[in-house]
C-alpha cells in the first residue's frame, strides 16, 4: 500500500490568545511513500514529524492537503477506518490486561464480515507474538515486562490486525543503548517479513539511517530532503541536512569562493567550477579529510582519540563554526601527536559548499584539489 501525502499542512492555533500567533507544525508536505517501504521521519523536536505521523494515522486532521492510501483519499476518514497500526512512544499498553489480552484487543474490535472466531483470534495473536518473540510472555501484565518487551508487545498489538500501514512514534527512545540497537534490527526484520508500509518517527539520525529505506528530514514543519539514507548523507541539499546527519557531525567552516577558488581564511583548499563568487559555508565530513604533510588545510592539533578500528584526529581552526574539526581515519595511520599543527587533504566527494545566504547547497565541479 503506497501512502501519498499531498500538500499536507497543519496549523495549530496559538495557545496564547492575545499573541494570536499560529504555529505551523507541518507546511505543504508532499511525498509518496512507495508500497512496502520503511520510511523514517527525521528531525529535531518540534520539526513536525510526529504531527505528520498523527495526520497519517488520522488522530489529527490536516488543516489542508490530502492523504491517500493507495488510490483512496483517506483525508476525511477517521482513524479506525484507515486500517493502520500505531505504536506509541511509551507503548500505551493497557495496564490492566495481560500481554495476550492486549494483543487480542484489536481483533476483538472487528465486526461484520471481518469478525474472527475465537480460535482464529488466538492463532493470529500467537503468530504476531512469535514474530516479535514474546510468545513466552503472553500471560504477564505489562508492568511485569522490561521496556524492550513492552515495545515488542506494542508492535505485536499494532501488527496483529495486519494493518495497511504501520506507524511508529519514536519507537526506540525509551530503550537503553544496547536494546536500541537490537530492537531496531528487529523492527527492520519484522517490516521486511510482513512487507507492511511502515513510517516511523525519530530524532536520532543514526537510527533512521540504519533501518530506513527512505528518510525524510524535516525542520520547523518544512521537509528538507527526502531520499535513501546513504544518498541523503552523501548529497545533502542544505546545511541543515548536512549537519543533522552523520556521527560524528560534519565539520563546518566559513569560507568564500572567489574566482573559482575556495578559500578558508587565506588558504585555497579547492578550485571549483560553476560557483559564483560569494561567501560560503564549507562542510567536510570527518571521513573526508586525512592528515597529510602537504595537506591544504592547516589546523591546530588538539589530540588524537583512538577508538579501536578508527582514530579521530581532533583539531581546531579559526574559521570553523563547529567547536572542533574532526577527522576520522584508520588507526593504522600515525599522526605526530606532539606537533602543534596538522595538515589535511580533502576528499572532494565529502566536501560540500553551501551559500552563506540561503544555506542551500552550491554544486560545483572539481578543477583541482589538494
Amino acid at each position, binding site marked *: 500500500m503506497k501512502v501519498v501525502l499531498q500538500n499536507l499542512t497543519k496549523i495549530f492555533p496559538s495557545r496564547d490568545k492575545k499573541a494570536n500567533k499560529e504555529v505551523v507544525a507541518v507546511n505543504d508536505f508532499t511525498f509518496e511513500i512507495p508500497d512496502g517501504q520503511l520510511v523514517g521521519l527525521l528531525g529535531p523536536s518540534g520539526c513536525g514529524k510526529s504531527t505528520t505521523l498523527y495526520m497519517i494515522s488520522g488522530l489529527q486532521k490536516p488543516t489542508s492537503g490530502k492523504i491517500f492510501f493507495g488510490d*483512496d483519499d483517506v483525508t476525511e476518514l477517521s482513524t479506525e477506518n484507515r*486500517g493502520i497500526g500505531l505504536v506509541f512512544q511509551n507503548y500505551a499498553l493497557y495496564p490492566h490486561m495481560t500481554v495476550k489480552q492486549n494483543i487480542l484487543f484489536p481483533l476483538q474490535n472487528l465486526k461484520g464480515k471481518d469478525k474472527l472466531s475465537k480460535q482464529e483470534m488466538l492463532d493470529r495473536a500467537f503468530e504476531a507474538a512469535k514474530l516479535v518473540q514474546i510468545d513466552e510472555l503472553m500471560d504477564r501484565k505489562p508492568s511485569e515486562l522490561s521496556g524492550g518487551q513492552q515495545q515488542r508487545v506494542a508492535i505485536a498489538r499494532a501488527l496483529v490486525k495486519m494493518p*495497511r500501514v504501520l506507524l511508529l512514534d519514536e519507537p526506540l527512545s525509551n530503550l537503553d543503548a544496547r536494546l536500541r540497537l537490537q530492537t531496531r534490527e528487529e523492527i527492520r526484520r519484522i517490516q521486511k517479513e510482513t512487507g507492511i508500509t511502515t513510517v516511523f518517527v525519530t530524532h536520532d539520525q543514526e537510527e533512521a539511517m540504519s533501518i530506513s529505506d527512505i528518510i525524510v528530514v524535516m525542520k520547523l514543519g518544512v521537509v528538507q530532503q527526502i531520499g535513501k539514507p546513504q544518498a541523503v548523507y552523501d548529497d545533502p541539499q542544505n546545511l541543515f541536512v548536512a549537519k543533522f546527519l552523520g556521527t560524528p557531525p560534519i565539520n563546518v567552516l566559513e569560507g568564500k569562493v572567489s574566482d573559482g577558488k575556495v578559500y578558508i581564511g587565506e588558504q585555497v583548499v579547492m578550485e571549483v567550477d560553476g560557483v559564483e563568487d560569494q561567501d560560503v559555508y564549507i562542510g567536510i565530513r570527518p571521513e573526508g579529510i586525512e592528515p597529510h604533510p602537504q595537506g591544504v588545510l592547516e589546523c591546530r592539533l588538539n589530540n588524537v582519540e583512538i577508538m579501536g578500528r578508527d582514530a579521530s584526529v581532533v583539531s581546531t581552526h579559526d574559521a570553523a563554526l563547529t567547536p572542533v574539526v574532526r577527522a576520522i581515519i584508520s588507526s593504522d595511520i600515525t599522526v605526530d601527536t606532539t606537533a602543534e599543527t596538522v595538515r589535511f587533504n580533502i576528499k572532494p566527494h565529502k566536501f560540500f559548499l553551501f551559500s552563506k545566504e540561503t544555506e542551500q547547497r552550491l554544486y560545483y565541479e572539481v578543477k583541482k584539489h589538494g
Partner: protein
Amino acid sequence: MSNINIMQERNIQKISAGQKAVRVLSKTGTYIFLLIMALIVLFPFYWMIISSLKTLAEYRQAVPTFWPRQVMFGNYVEAFTTAKLGDLFMNTLYVGIVSTLLSLVITVLSAFAFARLEFKGKETLFGALLATMMIPGELFTITNYITINQLNWMHTFTALIVPFLVSVFYIYLLRQNFMQIPNELYLAAKVDGTSDLKYLWKVMIPLALPTLISITILKMMGAWNSYIWPKLVANDDAHQMITNGLRNAFTDTSGQANYPVQMAAVAIVSAPLFLVFLCLRKYIMSGVSRGGIKG
C-alpha cells in the same frame, strides 16, 4: 503470517460519509444527554432561588408557582439584617480556618506514619480506624456532649473544633496519595540525612498538594454546614455558627421557619462556597482523582 489484509476492500466514500454522520450524531447525543441531566440537577437550585424570592403565602400555596408573582428582594435584605450575618460569618471562618489547619497537621502526620513507617500492628490499627467510619455518628453525640461538658469546654470555640479534628476518611485519602510517591525518594532523603519533617515538608506535601487542598475545602464546607453539634455546645452569640444563626433567626411564633427568608439567607451563604469552587476547581478535580491511577 497470513497476507490477507483485512482492512482492504472497503468503500471509502461510504465509510467516510457514515462516520461523519455517526460523529455528529454522537456529539449531539452527548450534548443532549448532558444538558438534560444538567437541567435536572439545576432544578432544585433554581427552586431555592425562586423560593427565596416569594412571599410566605405564595410559598405555602398548594400549586407551586414557577416564577414568584411578587418578587421579594426584601427577603434578602431581611435575611442580611436579622441574622447578623457578619458575626456569624467571622465565627464560622475562624472555626473553619483553625480546624482546617490543625486537622491538616494531624492528618499529614498520621498518613505519613501509615504510608511510610513500619511499626507493629500497623495493619490492624488502620483496619480498626476504617471500621469506625461505619458506625452512625449520631450515637456519639450524647457521650461526646458529656465529655465536652466535663472538660469544661461548653460555649468555647474549642468545643466546635477539637472533636472533629481527626477524620479517618482524610487520613485514608492522604495515605493513598502518599503511597504513590516512590519510596526511593524517602530512602534517598534518609541517605542525605534529611529529617522526616523536612522531607514531609519539602517532598511529600508539595506532591500531595491537590489532596490537601481538597481536604481544606471539605473541611471548610463542614464548618459551613455543621448544625446539630454547634447548636448543642456553643449556640451563644459569641460563638454561633452560620447555619445555626440562619435557622434560628427566621422562625415565627410556633417555631415554624419563614422559609423564603431562610432560603434567601442560604443563598447568600452558599455564594462564597460556590465562588471557592469556581476558583479552585482545578485543584479539587485533581485532588479527588489521586486514588491510584497510573498514567
